[in-house]
């Protein structure tokens, strides 16, 4: 090897830049690559998996975990966390079901004209979520209580309230106006899937293009420096909690619509799936880092595995084992990614 070989030749710099850009693209979208790889494997090895209906099922069934994962991402990016989302979702679902359900413990409220049930129930669910989100945010910001403790408490009392309100009984028989979103298709695609995509598009845009979104990253990266730079940290963090709660309320409303009511344990276990999706999607638990496109891929990956297991007829505890392994792999991969970035980019 001569000195000339190691010297950058004409055109080598642009080539290096291209390689760096390609590497950066690959690292930024690693979860999508893993998702595509997993889907390809499932399509090859699992009979009847590769069909449009199954792919639509994957997206539709991702809706609830996917939406609460957006709220969780907002709080994590802001350097906090929200453990209450699953209970808020359940409480919103139960509130709507108790008000409008005609069977079981339902109150059977009938509005005139009937379509009013749609906006009123939606407002109720979003209101329940926003209220608990505001309460969480206020306790964290104003009283400076650790978000883990505040939202864990909300998780526990929220679940208890669901059981207390329903007396352990199921509620069913929601009006058609409320069920519409779960039974309607637009261009052959379930409406729930459209809602999921719309939520991700709106919040990805918000995070990337609005001052509020950019400020969340800055606050999560360094709250003190952000405050010194004049960013309203308290207001933005509170707003992140309110948005997280509101999104959980939306997920609860959709869940009630999907299951035509509510049981005493709606959505149980979804908090951990949301956490798994967020970590797999590359949102840093330390705050200030992460993109919703990665979270979306994480949610779809988890849903794909669940669907594959359903189609294969495997016992469901394998899902949990695989999800746990994936979370660990994601953290290790994240460490490897950071190493690669430091070395080559």
């Amino acid at each position, binding site marked *: 090897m001569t000195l000339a070989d190691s010297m950058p030749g004409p055109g080598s710099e642009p080539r290096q830049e291209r390689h760096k850009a390609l590497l950066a693209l690959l690292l930024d979208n690693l979860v999508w690559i893993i998702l595509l790889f997993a889907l390809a494997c499932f399509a090859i090895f699992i009979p009847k998996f590769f069909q449009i209906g199954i792919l639509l099922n994957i997206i*539709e069934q991702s809706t609830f975990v996917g939406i609460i994962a957006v709220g969780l991402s907002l709080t994590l990016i802001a350097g906090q966390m929200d453990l209450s989302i699953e209970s808020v979702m359940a409480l919103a679902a139960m509130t709507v079901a108790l008000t409008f359900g005609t069977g079981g413990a339902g109150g059977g409220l009938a509005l005139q004209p009937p379509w009013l049930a749609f906006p009123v129930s939606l407002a109720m669910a979003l209101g329940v979520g926003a209220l608990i989100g505001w309460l969480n945010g206020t306790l964290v910001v104003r009283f400076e209580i650790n978000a883990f403790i505040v939202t864990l408490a909300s998780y526990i009392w929220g679940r208890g309230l669901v059981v207390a309100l329903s007396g352990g009984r*199921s509620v*069913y028989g929601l009006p058609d106006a409320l069920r519409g979103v*779960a039974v309607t298709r637009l261009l052959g695609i379930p409406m729930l899937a459209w809602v999921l995509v719309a939520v991700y598009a709106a919040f990805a845009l918000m995070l990337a293009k609005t001052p509020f979104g950019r400020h969340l990253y800055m606050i999560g990266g360094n709250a003190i420096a952000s405050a010194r730079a004049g960013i309203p940290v308290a207001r933005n963090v509170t707003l992140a909690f309110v948005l997280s709660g509101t999104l959980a309320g939306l997920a609860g409303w959709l869940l009630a619509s999907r299951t035509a009511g509510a049981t005493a344990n709606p959505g149980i276990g979804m908090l951990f799936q949301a956490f798994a999706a967020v970590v797999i999607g590359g949102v840093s638990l330390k705050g200030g880092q992460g993109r919703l496109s990665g979270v979306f891929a994480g949610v779809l990956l988890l849903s794909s595995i669940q669907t594959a297991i359903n189609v294969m007829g495997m016992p469901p505890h394998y899902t949990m084992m695989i999800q746990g392994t994936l979370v660990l792999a994601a953290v290790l991969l994240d460490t490897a990614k950071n190493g690669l970035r430091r070395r080559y980019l």
Partner: protein
Amino acid sequence: MNRLLRLAAATALTLGLAASGALAQSKGTIYYLVPTLLDEFQTGSIDAIEKFMGDVGYEVTSLDAQNRSDLQLNQVDDVLNLAPKAVILAAVDFDAIKPGIEKLRAAGIPVMIFDRQITSTPSDFTSVAGTVEIGHIAGDEAIRLLTEKNGSPKGKVLQILGDPGDPYTLDIQKGFEEKVSAHPEITVITQAAMQWEATNAGNIAQDQLLTNPDIDLIFNHAAHLSVAVAAVLEAQGKKPGDIMMMSSNGAPVGLDLIRKGWLNVEVEQPMYAQAAALAMFADKVVNKQEIEAGTYDVIGLTSELTIESWGPNIKIPGAAITADNVDDPKFWGNLQPPTTPVAAVE
């Protein structure tokens, strides 16, 4: 002022006499250790046990184990210090609770087993429909439905269990499969809805109907799972009756689904009779008197009491609820508890 004092004294005396009268009527407190409140059967059983035990003079305090066997064992330790007349136990885990039962009985506190049979250690009285037997009834009904549809016992069944860590659902699965396995032309696909969560059941049905569109019958191990499955079927454009469906436990929601045509059969667990049987034999259990084997009438259901190696065991027959008998008030899902008080067995 004096009149006010006299009035207060008279009120206190009246309340005191009333309280002492109430205490005199009560034979003592029995603790009911309920496995969870996230299940309509269990929440309904609290009311039923309180009502029937009240008929024979006992007060009941219920403690929820939140589906945690460790918490239920802690509750046993707590109750031990409260000197109850007896403990009614619906176990979270049939095996994990064994040391708790032994501890209670060693302390002289009788243990009555409700709904979830425990055979690994002796107890003082057991009142069950039998989870395996519920599975048997479901199996027979599945065979009947498939024969009516396909001309002979053949077809494809999607069986959706509850949480795979819950012995209750595994027993029903065992009973169901014991029956249908006698017919080789019946294929059973089994999936479990983690944590008994209804959305999981809906997702399973949605995926399976795509990959196995020839499913004839869906058997859900609880009525609340059927609600989500019916909702998914409706979203897929199916009409009631397009795919046969059945579930077990007899909850109100299941009966409503029968009335709407989504559900063909709901296997009833005779909750009222199971609870009434406890009350009928409570005096004998508390006073440690001998219980005789034989046939007993438990609020209209002929039930067999046998003396097993684990103790006296009364088995109340379950029933298949269909569109023909769905309005019968004897089914607990119709939420019409018997008004006639039960009487203690002499």
